[in-house]
């Protein structure tokens, strides 16, 4: 127990001269738990060399290469994501544009329709007004012509009556002759 304890301490506190001898060299029973200082020193030296060489020429480059590759992958992923985002943004923009254009077109159509409607109404209105005006004028013209014709007829009738009466008066003595006279006059009117 005590020897085990001493070995624990010896192992932990880097080889002590106590355990320097090699058990095997004595030729007797071999103690597997007694370390040889020479081998410990060799191990230390070899391990140190391996560590330095590997750290510098093996693990450094491998880790660097892997880190570079990871960085490249990361960058590729990031750029792909950025591209995707940009594409999505562009798509959204285009969608918005198309939506806006659609709205505008709709507006134009409705505006056009409204304009056409108002124009039609206006045209109809003005046509109706013109028509009314024309009708009114025609009516007025007709009335005026009618009045004029009636006046003419009246004047003519008066003239005729006067002419007839004067003829009657001229030949008042002979009734038969008067009659004949009037008749011949009327016949002359017919020829006139």
């Amino acid at each position, binding site marked *: 127990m005590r020897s085990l304890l001493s070995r624990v301490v010896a192992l932990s506190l880097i080889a002590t*001269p106590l355990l320097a001898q090699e058990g095997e060299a004595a030729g007797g029973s071999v103690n*597997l*738990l007694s370390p*040889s200082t*020479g*081998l410990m020193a060799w191990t230390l030296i070899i391990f140190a060399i391996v560590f330095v060489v590997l*750290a510098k020429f093996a693990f450094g480059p491998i880790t660097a*290469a892997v880190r570079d590759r990871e960085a490249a992958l990361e960058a590729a992923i990031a750029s792909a994501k950025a591209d995707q985002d940009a594409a999505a943004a562009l798509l959204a923009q285009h969608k918005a544009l198309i939506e806006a254009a659609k709205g505008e077109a709709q507006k134009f159509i409705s505006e056009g329709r409204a304009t056409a409607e108002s124009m039609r109404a206006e045209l109809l209105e003005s046509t109706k007004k013109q028509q009314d005006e024309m009708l009114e004028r025609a009516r007025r013209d007709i009335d005026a012509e009618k009045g004029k014709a009636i006046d003419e007829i009246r004047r003519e009738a008066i003239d005729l009556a006067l002419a007839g009466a004067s003829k009657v008066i001229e030949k008042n003595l002979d009734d038969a002759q008067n009659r004949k006279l009037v008749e011949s006059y009327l016949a002359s009117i017919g020829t006139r």
Partner: protein
Amino acid sequence: MRFAALFTALVLAAAPARIAAQDAAPKKVDIITPHITDAHALDIPAGFGHGLVQEIELPHWAPLHIGSLELDMSPTKHVVMLLLAATLVIVALTSAARGVAKRAATGRPPTGFSGAMEAMVLYIRNEVILPNVGHHGEAFVPFGLTLFFFILTCNLLGLIPYGSTATGNIAVTATLAIVTFLVIEIAGMKALGAGYINTIIFWPRDMPLGMRIPMSIILSPVELIGKFTKPFALAIRLFANMTAGHIVVLALIGLIFSFGSYVLAPLPLAMAVAIMFLELMVAFLQAFIFTLLSSVFIGLVRESHH
């Protein structure tokens, strides 16, 4: 292909026993201990007609003296395995890194071997280290990854023929654990600043002073022991797991020789093959666990605000 390798490994593991058995029957042969312990010799394939395995003696160097410390830096089997593992790991991962960088220049993910290595590195980094060490854990990634790949390669080297498991040696696992311990404590000091002292001395501010002092006297040693048990457990876990698997495989192979029968041989062999597959999994698992627990401990000390 893999079966052939495993079979060779098993035969090789058994080879010394066969030779020894011919010498003298009553002599006790230990095939397990030499296999799982360190040695100043290296097992290599022998030339044709000289058996399967041949030992070559490694050079002995005069021990270095640093103060009172005697340091025997003579290379051993495990030192060679550690160096081999270090070379393999460095070559594999730097070439993978080059492949990754080359493909990265064209902006594409890597393929083939570098792709597989990148996947492993990324898994350990993203799933094991970063979630456990807490915020700003990037600084601990190379350490954790080095632990994982180095331990894994050491573990796997123990499974191939002529290989030896350096991570089955307490000196290696203890050193790795001590390094981890230092990393944990330095991470704690950096993250907590002066508050780091609270991870050693238990000092509950919301208690009355009369309670605080006895609580501190009782619980401070617990906190301190807690600090040292973590790396101790790391060292023992890895060492024991790697050693145990090899002992099981060798014990199963040893059964063939205790029975001394060709008829019974396939059964322990089949079991040993199964254990070798398990060992393959354990090699990965233990490297993973060492890294995971190191990350968790680093995260614990960095997040411990009292």
